[in-house]
């Protein structure tokens, strides 16, 4: 897997995305429901859920198994029908901590607990439905969608179909397979937001998905082609690219009248509203050097092991797994790791695939990292300030503005993984404030 070397200043990074060329033509393979679904209580940004079920209890597919009080919460649902085998703390692949999970053993005939139908003309009811369906930002952010939809003063809704990461293609595949459903989802979200203008931001070329484009046009949705450069998928950067304005520091897009949601999220909203199905399944791009990219449709809570088994891949061949994007996702060795609501990709690497940041050299102050940073901060100086624990410098260098796109590490000729310094720097600054 090699990557091209063109780069221009200010984050307009043209990354080689050849590994996903043609993969959008591969239909979703529907994976079997897992034998055991591991449902983490924490699958969103915000307060952690409490289990609503007990060990030994029978649960249905789509039944709520965890929820919490408060605004920044979204429930989680069982993705299979079966018996709660255990409620225990297991290792969470993203928070990097032990977190509570409900483990459901699939048993008997699948029975579905659907969401109650609501009046889809009522803004408040749509927002409530989206919350009850457990919908979160599916591009990887896991921000509760109902909070975004409830924002006041929004006049433009951007649907993010940028999918700029080099290994992800499932959004585009979804656009090919489910155009009507996506448009319906988008319209519902636009209604909830009460906006007049909806922009569909896509990396696809004109005529690539004619059906979707026709439906968008008929639905009054503006289609905007965005440059295929990495990291512009970040919602703040997308706002700058499309609207020509920036989201002020410490604020969110709705503060300047814009709401951004991912295209897969719109599809999840459709499923909740029209099929009564909470967020218990989603698409994912699966990659190994052996198979190339495949698009899979899986139930949340499926473990890496089961998914690999479903793909007839010998688990012993692989050494580590990347959840989500190769640029932003975390690696795990644990094959029992469950896939979450916001897992958009799974990449399995063999031992032979070299770790590009294993041998880090000294910083040569070439400034490559600084020149590609899309938010105009100085990762090289932040690294120095972090090493010296110089909180004053971290503040002056605005480490808090880093969007963790990891472009800086990607271009570093000394192969320094700056990520750890950016995380640390943010922590140090946070602790000092």
């Amino acid at each position, binding site marked *: *897997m*090699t*990557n*091209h*070397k063109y*780069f221009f200043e200010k984050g307009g990074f043209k990354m080689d995305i050849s590994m996903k060329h043609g993969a959008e033509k591969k239909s979703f393979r529907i994976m079997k429901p897992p034998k055991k679904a591991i449902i983490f209580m924490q699958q969103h940004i915000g307060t952690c859920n409490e289990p609503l079920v007990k060990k030994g209890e029978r649960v249905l597919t789509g039944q709520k198994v965890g929820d919490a009080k408060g605004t920044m919460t979204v429930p989680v649902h069982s993705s299979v029908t079966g018996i709660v085998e255990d409620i225990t703390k297991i*290792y969470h692949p993203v928070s*990097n901590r032990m977190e509570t999970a409900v483990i459901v053993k699939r048993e008997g005939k699948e029975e579905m607990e659907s969401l109650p139908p609501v009046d889809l003309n009522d803004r408040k009811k749509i927002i409530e439905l989206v919350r009850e369906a457990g919908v979160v930002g599916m591009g990887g952010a896991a921000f509760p969608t109902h909070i975004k939809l409830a924002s006041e003063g929004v006049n433009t809704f951007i649907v993010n179909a940028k999918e700029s990461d*080099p290994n992800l293609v499932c959004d585009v595949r979804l656009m090919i397979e489910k155009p009507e459903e996506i448009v319906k989802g988008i319209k519902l979200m636009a209604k909830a937001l009460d906006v007049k203008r909806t922009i569909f931001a896509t990396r696809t070329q004109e005529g690539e998905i004619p059906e979707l484009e026709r439906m968008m046009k008929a639905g009054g949705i503006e289609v905007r082609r965005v440059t295929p450069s990495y990291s512009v998928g970040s919602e*703040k*950067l997308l706002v*700058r690219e499309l609207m*020509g*304005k*920036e*989201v*002020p*520091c410490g*604020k969110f897009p709705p503060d300047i009248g814009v709401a951004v949601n991912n295209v897969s999220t719109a599809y999840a909203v459709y499923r909740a509203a029209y099929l009564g199905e909470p967020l218990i399944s989603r698409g994912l791009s699966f990659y190994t050097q052996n198979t190339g990219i495949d698009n899979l449709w899986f139930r949340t809570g499926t473990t890496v092991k089961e998914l690999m088994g479903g793909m007839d891949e010998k688990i012993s061949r692989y050494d580590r797994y*990347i959840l989500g994007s*190769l*640029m*932003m996702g*975390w*690696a*795990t*060795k*644990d094959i029992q790791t469950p896939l979450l609501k916001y897992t958009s990709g799974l*990449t399995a690497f063999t031992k032979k695939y070299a*770790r*590009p*940041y294993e041998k880090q*050299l*000294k*910083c*040569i*102050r*070439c*400034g*490559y990292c600084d*020149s590609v940073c899309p*938010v*105009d*901060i*100085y990762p*090289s*100086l932040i690294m120095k300030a972090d090493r010296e624990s110089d909180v004053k410098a971290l503040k*002056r*260098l*605005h480490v808090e*503005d880093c969007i963790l796109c*990891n472009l800086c*590490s*990607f*271009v*570093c*000729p*000394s*192969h320094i993984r700056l*990520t750890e310094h950016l995380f640390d720097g943010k922590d140090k600054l946070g602790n000092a404030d």
Partner: protein
Amino acid sequence: MKKHVNEEPPHIHMGSSKNELMLKTFLMMSVIAVASVMVLGLGAFIHILIALGTVLIIHCSIHSFQIWKGMEPTYASPASPMVAGMIVGLSMPIAAPFEITAAVAALTILAFKYGQGKYFKRKYLNPAAASKSVLLLLLSLKTLREGMLLHPHHLDLNLATAEGLQSSMWIFGRETLPFIGTNLSPAQSLFLWQTHGWIGGASSLVVLVVGSIAAYWLKFKWRIIVSTLVSMTILAAGFGVYLGGDPVLRIAFHVFTGSVIFLAFFMATEPQSTPMTNTGQYAFGFSLAVLTFGLQLFNVLGGSIIALVILNIFTDRFDKMVLKKPYGHKGVKG
């Protein structure tokens, strides 16, 4: 290794390496070296060979010693020392004795490349410039002891007047462009074909072309190059108008002598010893031009080298100057 999360992102890399960067820099400088040998002949070739050879012999000895002692080698490949050697070769005046080139090369690799890296964690001073400065200092002490403020070669120069500049330029005014047979004026000679001064600056045109390609391809700190050359041009034009005389000649002299043009592209952009921030780089280039220009007016031998070393010391200060405004701090646009 732990069973769980092991690695932070990212998991892919662009594919370039420090080594590759160094080799490409060496390659670009080799083009300049070829041009210089064409202009200056065998002497230039021997200087470059001595510089490269000295650096490589010392590097290989240290490298072998480190391997023998089971230490992690400071430079896994000879690419970076080779670049240092090439810079020394190209930054030597053609009239310098060969042993001085060997001495500068040895000092560069030993004290300012290996030594600085080991004892100061990073290179604060440009290795070739620092070692040349040390030798210049020794030379100046010698001339001072002999009762002369300036080096004998520069005693008669008076670049602070129009006449002084004009009369000093005889050294550049005797070239004939080979193949075409055109006689060159001093200004033309400074731009195209100069047989006096730094080996690397024998053809400013070649340095400009190759340097620009290298700066674009290898992402040199181009702001330093631009601000140095633009500031130098403005200063020279301004003084040219103020002092009278031929302004083109003054610009050609202050911008196209090897010690300015080669230094601006290949030494002042040395990554470790120069600022990281955009404003810092512009300010660095501007200060380099002002300081070099001032020292040139006072006929100080090695003015640009001294200016570079002085500014290297203040690199961290330059980095504390105005920073780019990050996203979201610029207010609403458009």
